[in-house]
């Protein structure tokens, strides 16, 4: 288009006004001097080059314009621009997807002191619409020219009312509010937040704190192991038990045996995470994971399992509990002792300190320590909550300590420690570390006891419920097993017999435990219907029973018939039974401790 074309010089000169003058002067094309002709030629070339240049520029601009007009916007940029601010903090869900903690978009009311016309009038009108605003303080702050956050979490109606005032210097600011729809349910697990720097919530405790540690954001909710319905039922029953028995506090936990997942975890008194400051700090303490206690006789189950597994005891071994046992300088007694010879089942059934101390002596310090260590009772739990605590044991572990620890004295653990250890005792003998996050799939765990030990322990612990100290722990259709524990609380220099910790740790269904449950009441008192007793069999055991009866259906645990349960207690599987028939195991003689002898009776299954 811009190619130079040859043209007759005459024509060009005729077109050129200068040419007219040249013609008038009688000068023709052919008469131009060569120097002038070269200059003309050069000028033409320059004009052509400029035209080409301008053309290129216009073409470039047009092309760019076209591409800009036709170019699709970057979806990612749009997404970022449209992303709502309130979605920044990840939600916390229960194991079934129910919301435990979420974000609510709200608006805060800010007032710029330098923009208001009349500080006193502004404060007066705002406090008239929002009574929670302190008129005097606001007026003083605005009078000083400060920028004030006058109110948070305005409702749409409040915002409209403030807007209608038409006051200058009033600004509405979008704000995040962490919201816990179930209030005090699972409060100690979910935790709570503080406003944080710049109004961005920061987790203070529980899974909220875990969120910050993981820097988890929207779109990746934290799925806890908690079952909301089971949690609510556990909390309701725990509160009922604490109130009924006038206890100082209480806690309960339900653990899934196969995975170590914490299905429910409750501490009472509790708090509303939406207003954590409304209660004393004591109510915000997660007693299940953060407090250590001497859990008492529940440890007898651990000691018995270790002894069974080590082969130093079996269901027929007899222990002398007719009189107090002297270990070094310590006299070990039973609470309301039966004063008789006992099998291992009787020792658990009647919660004999004397009997279990003999079991521990047979077991030996090393094997006792090894068993407790394998059950995770020496280390803080590796859970997802920051509220963890190390167990506290004796500095020196001699025969006296072995005896007292066998029945849970002189060794402090968190309730969750005990629940996890108990799950290994009655499950399949495998220890699985507890977790507060949902687990999809199987958890292998660390084998501690043999499967056979766990089977025998279930039988022995069933006897505690049917004929022992925990008859009130029965739950129809679930044949629970377990152990009561009433521990005097330690104080400097000894134990206070007037302050007790009453607990029941058990499992359901007893013949094939799916879940372990622990209920504890801190300093319960005798009440009507307990005949002056405040021991675990009268308060914690009934609470356990009610808990299991309510929670088991929620967890889809179907009740079974007595025949089915008995068969499972006696013969956990047909294969196991066949093996027992084909290769009967010779009855062991336990290491001699007079007057110990094998009982002639069949294995105790009561």
């Amino acid at each position, binding site marked *: 288009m811009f190619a130079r074309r040859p043209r007759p010089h005459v024509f060009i000169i005729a077109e050129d006004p200068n040419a007219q003058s040249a013609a008038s002067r009688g000068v023709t094309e052919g008469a131009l001097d060569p120097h002038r002709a070269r200059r003309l030629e050069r000028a033409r070339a320059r004009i052509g080059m400029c035209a080409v240049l301008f053309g290129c520029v216009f073409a470039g601009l047009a092309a760019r314009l076209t591409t800009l007009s036709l170019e699709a916007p970057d979806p990612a940029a749009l997404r970022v621009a*449209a992303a709502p601010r309130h979605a920044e903090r990840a939600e916390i869900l229960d194991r079934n997807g129910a919301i435990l903690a979420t974000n609510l978009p709200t608006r805060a009311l800010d007032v710029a002191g330098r923009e208001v016309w009349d500080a006193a009038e502004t404060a007066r009108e705002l406090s008239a619409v929002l009574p929670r605003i302190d008129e005097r303080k606001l007026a003083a702050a605005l009078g000083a020219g400060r920028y004030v956050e006058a109110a948070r979490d305005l409702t749409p109606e409040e915002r409209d009312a403030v807007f209608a005032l038409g006051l200058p210097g009033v600004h509405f600011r979008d704000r995040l509010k962490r919201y816990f729809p179930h209030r005090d349910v699972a409060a100690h697990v979910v935790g709570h937040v503080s406003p944080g720097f710049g109004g961005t919530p920061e987790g203070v405790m529980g899974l909220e704190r875990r969120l910050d540690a993981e820097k988890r954001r929207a779109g990746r909710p934290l799925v806890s192991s908690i079952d909301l319905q089971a949690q609510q039922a556990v909390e309701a029953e725990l509160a009922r038990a604490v109130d009924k028995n006038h206890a100082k506090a209480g806690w309960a936990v339900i653990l899934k045996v196969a995975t170590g997942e914490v299905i429910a975890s409750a501490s009472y008194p509790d708090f509303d995470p939406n207003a954590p400051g409304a209660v004393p700090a004591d109510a915000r303490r997660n007693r299940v994971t953060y407090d250590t206690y001497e859990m008492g006789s529940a440890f007898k189950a651990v000691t018995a399992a270790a002894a069974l597994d080590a082969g130093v005891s079996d269901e027929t071994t007899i222990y002398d509990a007719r009189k107090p046992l002297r270990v070094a300088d310590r006299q070990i007694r039973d609470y309301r002792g039966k004063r008789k010879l006992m099998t291992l089942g009787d020792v658990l059934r009647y919660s004999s300190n004397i009997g279990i101390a003999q079991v521990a002596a047979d077991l030996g310090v090393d094997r006792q320590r090894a068993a407790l260590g394998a059950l995770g009772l020496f280390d803080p739990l590796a859970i997802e909550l920051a509220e963890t605590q190390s167990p506290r044991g004796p500095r020196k572990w001699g025969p006296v300590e072995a005896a007292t620890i066998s029945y849970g004295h002189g060794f402090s653990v968190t309730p969750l420690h005990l629940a996890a250890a108990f799950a290994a005792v009655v499950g399949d003998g495998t220890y699985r570390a507890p977790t507060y996050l949902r687990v999809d799939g199987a958890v292998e765990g660390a084998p501690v006891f043999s499967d056979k030990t766990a089977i025998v322990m279930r039988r022995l612990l069933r006897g505690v419920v049917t004929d022992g100290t925990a008859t009130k722990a029965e739950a129809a259709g679930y044949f629970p097993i377990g152990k009561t524990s009433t521990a005097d609380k330690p104080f400097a220099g000894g134990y206070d017999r007037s302050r007790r910790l009453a607990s029941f740790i058990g499992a359901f269904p007893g013949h094939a435990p799916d879940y372990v449950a622990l209920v504890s009441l801190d300093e319960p008192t005798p009440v009507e219907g307990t005949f002056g007793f405040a021991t675990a069999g009268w308060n914690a055991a009934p609470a356990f029973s009610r808990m299991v009866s309510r929670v088991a259906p929620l967890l889809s645990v179907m009740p079974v018939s007595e025949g089915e349960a008995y068969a499972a207690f006696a013969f956990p599987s047909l294969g196991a039974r066949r093996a027992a028939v084909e290769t009967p195991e010779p009855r062991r003689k336990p290491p001699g401790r007079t007057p110990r002898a094998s009982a002639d009776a069949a294995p105790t299954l009561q």
Partner: protein
Amino acid sequence: MRIIMFVLCALLAAAAAGRYQAEVQVKQKRAEIRTLQADKAREAREIQILRAEIAYLESPERLERIARENTALKPVTGAQLMTADDFAVALGGPAADAPAFAAPAPTRRRSPGAVPQAVAMVDASTTP
């Protein structure tokens, strides 16, 4: 040369007009995007509020309180559950096959739920 200049001027005018038109369209589209984004954000806020409200309304604690205040319903217990097989039996159907090693009916009175001694005796009797 004049034609070229005319052409260039025409192109310039067309480009200017096209650019103006494109700019207007871009502004309109941007306004639409802003509106859509605002709508989307508002919808997201409302959805979030509704989700939170649903979570509160479905809170087991709240439902239990309402049920207690307004009905005579109580929490379900295990005693109220039965399997489909049990249900069929309850309606008069045939019982499911009993396991081969089912324990015989207890012959003596015992505590509810206690593992009967009879089971142990059966076990012992099958041991050579």
